[in-house]
């Protein structure tokens, strides 16, 4: 057995929901993470001390709100390795971020005959916006296929790249099977063969891996706060200044304008140009508290913790009859255990596990194109985070054995 204690990286006591439910084994952090008290406090503190509409109102309280929002942007941008914090545009999350890029850059740059390259791993959030953009522009959607262990097939990806490629949109980490994209390799290939916009879906990257945007070499990096200990409803997209300059505003209204004439308008500067309307300042402040919490844990340690749990789980599950685990080996996989168990449908598994206080996700994980390629309609997925420990894994294994027992054929 791997040398490992029961301890989580982050104390359960820091997370009110986990503290209140000591028997709960929450193994669905890839869907959304639990929130530490410090995040809840930060949100309450904003509303209790600094609540006013940011960027509006010439009084001290409004300035406090503006400052809090501004500081949150700096903290989060810094955490993700963007020195120029104004290149971080807040959105509701990754989904809205991808729609932003597809609209703000895609609509003015992708034309008939062009090609958009995505992969078979993509979450619908990084699939459908490009599929629909291609459809409306008369462009061609190309899908990079996968290796036998569900990693992006880099040779196939390379074969799709050409001067016609206008966008390459690819996930940093797959939510469905955990595969980690070798970003440096992808950047090298894309830059060598195209002048395409390179967009990374960081919804599962930012929470689980150290991210250094300035060193990555991609054009846009999208993420969701709720998957990295932050509140729901806040996330964002970091872009290079050069690429932001190429974008057109996609939502119109307050805050994003500079001057509104009767028949036309001019636009505010980055990042405000792409943040129309009253911003979600309170949740941005909450997310800043979340990244401070993660920074204190250290993202390298977060990654190491998840790898250790994955390896522990693999050992505990080794030899289980009829178990198929998807995705690459632990060193190329995030803390995701996506699997099927022969004769037990994932949906039934989830119900049985739920009765044992083990929360897992069963379904297509918003990745139907991937499920088609796996030849299944659904998998069961357990996913780990900073508060997960080996007891969670033990409970999972115990419940899986129980499920197998319930579904075992009765000998005639």
């Amino acid at each position, binding site marked *: 057995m791997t040398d490992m204690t029961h301890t989580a990286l982050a104390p359960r006591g820091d997370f009110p929901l986990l503290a209140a439910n000591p028997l709960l084994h929450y193994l669905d952090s890839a869907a959304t993470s639990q929130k530490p008290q410090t995040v809840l406090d930060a949100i309450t503190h904003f509303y209790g001390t600094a609540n006013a509409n940011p960027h509006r109102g010439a009084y001290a309280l409004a300035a406090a709100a503006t400052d809090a929002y501004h500081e949150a942007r700096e903290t989060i941008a810094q955490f993700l390795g963007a020195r120029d914090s104004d290149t971080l545009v807040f959105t509701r999350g990754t989904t809205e971020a991808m729609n932003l890029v597809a609209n703000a850059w895609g609509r003015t740059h992708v034309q008939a005959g062009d090609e958009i390259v995505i992969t078979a791993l993509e979450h619908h959030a990084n699939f459908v916006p490009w599929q629909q953009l291609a459809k409306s522009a008369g462009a061609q959607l190309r899908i990079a296929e996968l290796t036998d262990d569900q990693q992006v097939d880099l040779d196939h990806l390379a074969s799709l790249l050409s001067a016609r490629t206008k966008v390459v949109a690819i996930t940093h980490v797959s939510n469905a099977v955990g595969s980690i994209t070798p970003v440096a390799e992808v950047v090298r290939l894309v830059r060598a063969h195209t002048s395409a916009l390179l967009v990374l879906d960081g919804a599962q990257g930012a929470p689980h891996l150290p991210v250094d945007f300035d060193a990555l070499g991609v054009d846009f990096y999208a993420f969701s706060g709720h998957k990295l200990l932050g509140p729901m409803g806040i996330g964002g997209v970091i872009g290079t200044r050069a690429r932001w300059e190429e974008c057109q505003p996609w939502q119109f209204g307050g805050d994003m304008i500079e001057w509104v004439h009767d028949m036309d308008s001019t636009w505010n500067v980055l990042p405000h140009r792409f943040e129309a309307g009253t911003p979600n300042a309170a949740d941005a402040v909450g997310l800043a508290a979340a990244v401070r919490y993660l920074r204190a844990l250290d993202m390298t340690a977060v990654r190491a913790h998840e790898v250790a749990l994955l390896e522990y789980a693999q050992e505990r599950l080794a030899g289980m009859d009829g178990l198929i685990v998807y995705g690459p080996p632990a060193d190329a996989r995030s803390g995701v255990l996506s699997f099927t168990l022969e004769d037990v*449908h*994932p949906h039934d598994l989830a119900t049985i596990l739920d*009765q044992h206080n083990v929360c897992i996700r069963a379904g297509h994980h918003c990745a139907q194109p991937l*499920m088609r390629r796996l030849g299944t*309609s659904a998998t069961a997925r357990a996913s780990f985070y900073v508060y997960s420990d080996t007891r969670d894994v033990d409970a999972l294994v115990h419940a899986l054995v129980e499920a197998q027992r*319930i*579904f075992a054929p009765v000998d005639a």
Partner: protein
Amino acid sequence: MSDLQELYQSVILDHNRKPRNFGPLDDASGSAEGKNPLCGDQVEVAVRLDGDTLSAVKFTGSGCAISKASASLMTAAVTGKSRAEVDVLFERFHALVTGRLADAEITKESLGQLVVFSSVSRFPIRVKCASLAWHTLRAALENGDASIAVSTE
């Protein structure tokens, strides 16, 4: 019996493993396809009507044990019934799995083998699994030979 044992009792597991009336139906007078987009369950129900009598019902598709067993037990329960009788059974089954059927009516006499689904109401997330085939049957009956998509969402 624990809730789980009741949900996954032997009749349900047996119909999951060996679904009855599974496969395509020759000379179908109507069919419909039902999908639960949430979990990917998919079922196609084909019916043959002789006058007002449902002389044959078969299904194909894939899904969890609850949805498969429900489709299987449904085909057995409705074959030979009139449309009106099927409607009554549908309503009773739906009331059963959504927890709206009076205890006194949850009996083998009133429900036949469908009584094995009585614990589904304690698993609200699974109600759709149990009712997918029934919604699809109803669509197949209402739509003649048109193949339509039913969603329980």
